[in-house]
């Protein structure tokens, strides 16, 4: 067991570009669920729309990248409008199911053999990251984070991603402190009261959906920039549910909640995963793994992290719904 590598890899995972993607997606979800009380179970759909709005124009139609980035925002807002006009008048539990359904419609369509010419089907799209490589100021060889190597491209994604995240988080923070943000929270607490004060609840919810959706779409972009490949499998419903785990872990309706939540979530998941990988590994020189094979082996150790993630979500909601740094008064769990 190489604990140095395990730890440095887990720490890297918690702050990597992949983590930034989770943070952004969860920040968007926090705007929906945490501040507005919208039970959006389709955040993965926003991330998928963002990812493919970048990858399709660039790798299929050779668009210049600023136009593709613009399309990311436009299509996320478009999806929010579509979802909003169709579902926001429904009850919360209907909203949850319809948003899941729409996210799955998006994923299944992206996955379809029929649309392979456009989306690349199950294999997804590659070759759309060259613009990011071109404007990369860091040298190719990258740096070492203790025992974990970070290549130049990933380092660039990491640094620019953190700057972007800080900008987004600051914007969300300022928005939620503004009168507009206070109306959102009042809608979360009591929709009818907000309405009786003459607030257009529907419009506020729609705006919240658009802002959170656009942030989620940018998160999707960072996810596929890090993987250098956009595949529909990354945008399954579990992505949305893990985002819920993250914001509950970090504290609902807190700007730093998604950031801290992601770091803890990914650190623990990666630590479990890579320790088990090491503990079940066999080499020709050392054929017996650390853990007995009747218990766990190379083929099934990867399932453990999902078990941990799933049961952790359940346990968190039961035992510590305000998360680690959350405020009990701010939890959005009583949306009806």
């Amino acid at each position, binding site marked *: 067991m190489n604990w140095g590598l395990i730890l440095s890899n887990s720490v890297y995972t918690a702050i990597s570009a992949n983590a930034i993607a989770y943070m952004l997606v969860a920040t968007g979800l926090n705007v929906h669920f945490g501040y507005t009380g919208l039970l959006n179970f389709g955040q993965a759909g926003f991330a998928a729309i963002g990812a493919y709005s970048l990858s399709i124009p660039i790798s299929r139609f050779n668009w210049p990248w600023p136009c593709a980035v613009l399309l990311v925002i436009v299509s996320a807002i478009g999806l929010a409008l579509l979802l909003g006009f*169709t579902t926001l008048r429904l009850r*919360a539990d*209907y909203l*949850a199911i319809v948003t899941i359904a729409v996210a799955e419609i998006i994923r299944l369509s992206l*996955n379809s053999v029929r649309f392979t010419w456009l989306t690349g089907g199950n294999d997804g799209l590659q070759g759309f990251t060259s613009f990011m490589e071109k404007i990369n100021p860091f040298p190719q060889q990258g740096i070492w984070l203790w025992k974990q190597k970070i290549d130049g491209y990933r380092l660039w994604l990491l640094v620019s991603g953190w700057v972007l995240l800080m900008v987004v988080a600051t914007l969300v923070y300022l928005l939620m402190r503004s009168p507009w943000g206070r109306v959102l929270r009042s809608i979360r607490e009591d929709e009818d009261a907000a309405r009786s004060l003459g607030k257009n609840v*529907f419009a506020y919810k729609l705006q919240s959906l658009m802002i959170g959706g656009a942030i989620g779409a940018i998160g999707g972009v960072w996810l596929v920039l890090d993987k250098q490949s956009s595949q529909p499998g990354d945008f399954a419903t579990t992505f949305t*549910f893990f985002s819920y785990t993250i914001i509950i872990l970090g504290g609902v309706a807190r700007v730093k909640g998604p950031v801290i939540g992601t770091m803890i979530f990914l650190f623990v998941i990666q630590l479990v995963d890579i320790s088990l990988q090491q503990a079940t590994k066999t080499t020709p020189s050392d054929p017996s793994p650390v853990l007995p094979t009747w218990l766990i082996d190379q083929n099934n150790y990867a399932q453990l992290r999902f078990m941990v*993630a799933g049961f952790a*979500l359940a346990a968190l909601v039961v035992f510590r719904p305000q998360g680690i740094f959350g405020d009990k008064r701010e939890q959005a769990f009583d949306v009806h």
Partner: protein
Amino acid sequence: MRIDIAKSALRRGTGVLGIFLAVSFALWSPSAQAAQEDGTITVSVVERASGDNGQAKNPVAGVKIHVQGAAGSADGVTDAKGLAVLNVPQTGKYDVSFDATSLPKGVAVNSNTKTTASIDFSAGVSVGTGKSLSFFVGTDTRTTKGRWGLLPQTLVNGIKLSLILAICSIGLALIYGTTGLTNFAHSEIITMAAMVTFWFNQNGPRWPLLLAAPFGIAASALMGSAFELRVWRPLRRRSTSLTSMMIVSIGMAIGTRYVYLFFFGGRNRRFAQYVGDPEIDFGPVGITPRDLGVMIISAIVVIGFSIFLLRTRFGKAIRAVSDNSDLASATGINTDRIILLVWALGGGLAGIGGVMLGAATGVQWDMGNVILLLLFAAFTVGGLGNPFGALAGSFVIGMFTELWTWVFPNVVELKTLGALIALVVILLVRPQGLLGQKERVG
């Protein structure tokens, strides 16, 4: 392996009987290569048996493959995995064909099976040195029917799916009705029965399916009751909000699903019996005895349970709690006991559905999760919490799903889409669902 791509796409494309060709172009390596280097074309030949909803996919060995292009040609024979790897200069277009006469006995090519496909190294994402494609052949003989001739079969498939959905979603609706919980872990209760039945049928004592199934169903009922006693009742006592409980059920569902994957593995496996039985012909439709059994048992269960709900004391009590639990407890109904009964019954029904689903499409770790969205669609369309609404919704969703394959035979892998679009449209027109009560919202 490259055929996995086609497989995963086809897993959704169940139900269309017959044979079709799916070509999946795949990147072989992410590094760009010069155009004149040798590229590889990987061809797989897969048999999709009829009457299995296209689920069984056996590789076909010993099939002669020929690749012809301007820059060169190559020949090959598929190996035991049904794969043939051919090396050709990586430039231009190639026509790939297979020799139908070299297929083994019992595997046939139909009028609409394509025996040729083309591969173009210069088209699409042109980085990479390899391309792959799959030929699907089969033993089905009914595809000679015209479009209208296929409709009765589609309707029968729709009814079968609807009945399975109905069995599973009635429990979901009762649980929602009595406790207000949208139970995302219902999918895992469904899978539980199939897994336990599979163990008794294939791994443990190897009992016949009809003997093993009651144990599976009992396991699901127990699982439902255990959830209620250990998780939901304590949470209700703490007056945890419904949203929290919904998220708890999501967490439990994810965790449990991966426990299944851990122990069961990722493969789709079948019960020991009723595999590959010949179909019984009923005029325009052919049904395997297994599917006929699935339909008859499902219908009996659905009708029997409806009578139970409408006529018996317990059924009336369940509906009373579902209507207004405070009023029900004021009239002397022990609501906690009724809710426990609902979980046990709902779990048991989900278990029956799970065994039926396992018999129809094979046992798989995420089989419940695959139909969970359809169940939600069914019980949402019907009006949340109304068991008869769930019944009606199941038929709407089941029929829409199968009819999609008839209307759009080219995009069968998107058939879930038909159901989901139906869900969204119906909710737009009737926000309270088909049988739901109107409520002022928004």
